[in-house]
């Protein structure tokens, strides 16, 4: 049974800083896990290390998502952040990697080779945020229709959309002409 073990965090921190010491922008302690912040180009190597290192063994994929930090009160390195949540069955802890991606070139390496579960979540992030995952086998829209324009979860996208929901090509019943 995978049980939470708080004492194993130190091992994670030492191993992770040994591997990518200067690349880790900052580290934050949350209620029950540690979050590592890196730039987008360093994320893949760190996640690959976390997964394949025998002592750490973060082999359990939990979640992948993104955040748009437009107009956030605290300055962030870049506008977008891709957030990976992983679980280690060997250590019994979770960890999070937050990779910052620039607004001008929203692009990051795909982790579908490492975790099959990342396939759909990456498609979802592409659909809703417009962040491109290089090396993804099939990066197409997943939740919105294929011909939809824009990325609705971005902060500059209006909540009620840009009129798509009342104006799209679909048959309507019209009042019968007498």
């Amino acid at each position, binding site marked *: 049974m995978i049980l939470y073990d708080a004492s194993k965090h130190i091992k994670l921190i030492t191993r992770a800083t040994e591997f990518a010491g200067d690349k880790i922008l900052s580290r934050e302690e949350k209620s029950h896990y540690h979050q590592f912040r890196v730039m987008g180009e360093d994320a893949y190597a760190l996640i690959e290390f976390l997964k394949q290192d025998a002592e750490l063994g973060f082999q359990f994929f939990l979640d992948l998502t993104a955040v748009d930090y437009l107009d956030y009160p605290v300055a962030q390195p870049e506008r977008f952040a891709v957030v990976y949540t992983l679980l280690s069955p060997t250590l019994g802890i979770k960890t999070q990697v937050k990779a910052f991606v620039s607004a001008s070139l929203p692009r990051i390496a795909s982790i579908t080779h490492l975790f099959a579960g990342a396939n759909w979540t990456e498609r979802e992030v592409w659909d809703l945020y417009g962040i491109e995952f290089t090396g993804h086998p099939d990066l197409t829209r997943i939740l*919105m*229709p294929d011909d*939809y324009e824009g990325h*609705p979860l971005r902060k500059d*996208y*209006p*909540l*009620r*959309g*840009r009129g*798509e*929901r*009342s104006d*799209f*090509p*679909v*048959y*309507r*019943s*019209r*009042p*019968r*002409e007498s």
Partner: protein
Amino acid sequence: MGMMPKTNDFTITRLEDAINWARSKSMWPMPFGTACCGIEMMATFMSKYDAARFGSEVMKFTPRQSDLLIVSGRISLKMMPVLTRIWEQMPEPKWCISMGACASSGGVFDTYTLIQGVDQFIPVDAYMPGCPPRPEAFLDALMMVQKKASRGEARAQDFQEQATPADSGAV
């Protein structure tokens, strides 16, 4: 041998009325359950509420053999072409119940992807308030449609169907 026919064992009515009566008592629903309302719709057809008492227990999911479309749940941009295609496939006379706040008006979800009321696209005979409506409300709406049917009325009669775009999503 056999029963002698009694002299008072017949009734006189118009054929149309007899047909309408039969139609109203044997509504075959086409359940289009997408979300929470679909669960309450299921509850209505299950053991406790038992919609079979109203002659509507046949849920066959084939639009070509049903005459009552129950839109229960929220309808998104991607789903709307499918719904209209199903509505088109149903033979006339047909009726439609819009179940719950989301199908009727978008409900609490005033967002970029949700249709704010299916009546923009298909004619609706009965609206059911609630999020989700209770099974009792469902039965009430069913009886309202039955009354309408027994009068020979249907909102679909007032509408004409337009040619569908060639590819409006598969059903």
